[in-house]
């Protein structure tokens, strides 16, 4: 059996001042090649789970093992973030550069790519998402759906080994949603998607998990076999 990409062991996390923990003795594993959907009611901790994996939130107890290595210190997470891409729920949180091209190239530049390489990667990623011609557009003047796509481009441009998507479909029209489904189906990497859209998950993930306080249990909803179906 291959080693899991992500392993969370006996994790406990409580938001400061909150009466109840979000996770208590929480255990979770994600194996390579998996395409996992995370579902559950609002406020159950789906986003929190993604932020714990990225080290944006620190658990009070438990172990986080990513790519076979335990991550504890902020320095450990720097390495994690170079290989795991997280798409935020709100694209306004993610886009901060003046122009689209600069924003998409920001990640590759941080990874140490040269200017030419970063621009080439940025253009390629934008083309994948149908964002040609957006290079010089000003990020905050885009529409909601366009922002979402550009935010996704900024994450994909880092060429991550693992992708975490937090409600990627909000604000996208049907055509764009289909393009996103197509793109995800073509990806060679593992990913986890938080979404409330059953139809979208049906087309993009092989398994759905319900997030609970102690674990993340496979959903009973039959999803298997539907993946990679033509739209």
């Amino acid at each position, binding site marked *: 059996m291959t080693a899991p990409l992500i392993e969370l062991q006996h994790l406990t996390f409580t938001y400061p001042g909150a009466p109840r923990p979000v996770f208590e003795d929480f255990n979770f594993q994600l194996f390579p090649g998996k395409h996992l959907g995370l579902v559950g009611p609002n406020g159950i901790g789906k986003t929190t789970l993604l*932020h714990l994996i990225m080290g944006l939130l620190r658990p009070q107890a438990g172990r986080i093992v990513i790519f076979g290595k335990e991550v504890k210190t902020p320095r450990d997470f*720097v390495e994690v*973030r170079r290989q795991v891409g997280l798409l*935020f729920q709100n694209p306004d*949180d993610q886009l901060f550069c*003046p*122009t689209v091209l600069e924003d998409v190239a920001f990640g590759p530049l*941080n990874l140490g790519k040269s200017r030419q390489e*970063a621009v080439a990667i940025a253009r390629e990623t934008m083309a994948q998402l149908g964002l040609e011609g957006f290079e010089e557009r000003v990020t905050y003047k885009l529409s909601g759906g366009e922002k979402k796509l550009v935010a996704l481009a900024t994450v994909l441009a880092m060429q991550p080994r693992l992708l975490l998507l937090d409600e990627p479909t909000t604000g996208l029209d049907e055509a764009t949603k289909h393009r996103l489904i197509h793109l995800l189906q073509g990806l060679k990497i593992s990913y986890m998607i938080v979404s409330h859209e059953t139809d979208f998950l049906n087309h993009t993930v092989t398994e759905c998990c319900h997030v609970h306080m102690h674990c993340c249990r496979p959903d009973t909803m039959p999803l298997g076999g539907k993946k990679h179906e033509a739209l």
Partner: protein
Amino acid sequence: MSLSEPFAEGDSLIHRLDPRGRILVAALFAVLVAAAATYATAIGGLALAAFCLALARLPLKKVLTRLLVVNGFIFFLWAVLPFTHPGETLWRLGPLAASREGLLLTGLITLKSNAIILALMALVATMPVITLGQALQQLRLPGKLCHLLLFTYRYLHVFELEYQRLVQAMKIRGFQPKTNLHTYRSYAYLAAMLLVRSYDRAERVFQAMLCRGFQGKFYTLRTFIWSRRDVWFLAAALPVLAGLFCLELFPLRLL
């Protein structure tokens, strides 16, 4: 949209110049005029600024509105400075005496500030704030300052939208501002909410940057290219500025 940049769009000679050259000339001009102590330099500066403004072909009405705002502040100088500056008394208003020196000084300040504002409008306001930030970066200004400028501008926009959302949320539930405690309390909530949301937003933006490998270094992809036109612009502007400086050193007796 209150954050519009009405002067940034245009196709005048000034608009087509390289932003770096424009910033350089505007900065030199501002320093020269601000330090000037003679009317000759101030009037010369004003004439130069007006000339640039004419070249930039900006909408006159908007220019005047902006000038009015600036001169609103200068009005207070007129109300105070002539009466407090020591010197030869020109006329009296009850117990107050206006001095000749005070009036001259206030007039000088008025001319100088208007000259600088006009020059900035013509040379700097004619580029989008984003271009300004990128150009300053190319001019080797400290990166942190440039990004402070760009971030401030970027998030002013987001906060403005957030403010509008909150105001809309109040309106659709029938809120009408009146002179009562309910109104004051609601406005206090609005202000507090905006503050808290801004703080949260800043936190999330920083997290998103960390997720993309941010380690304290910024990059800009924008490159500017000097053209022949820019060389001509600098070649013309620098001697004129030098002339302005000479005017200051060897003042003509105007007054």
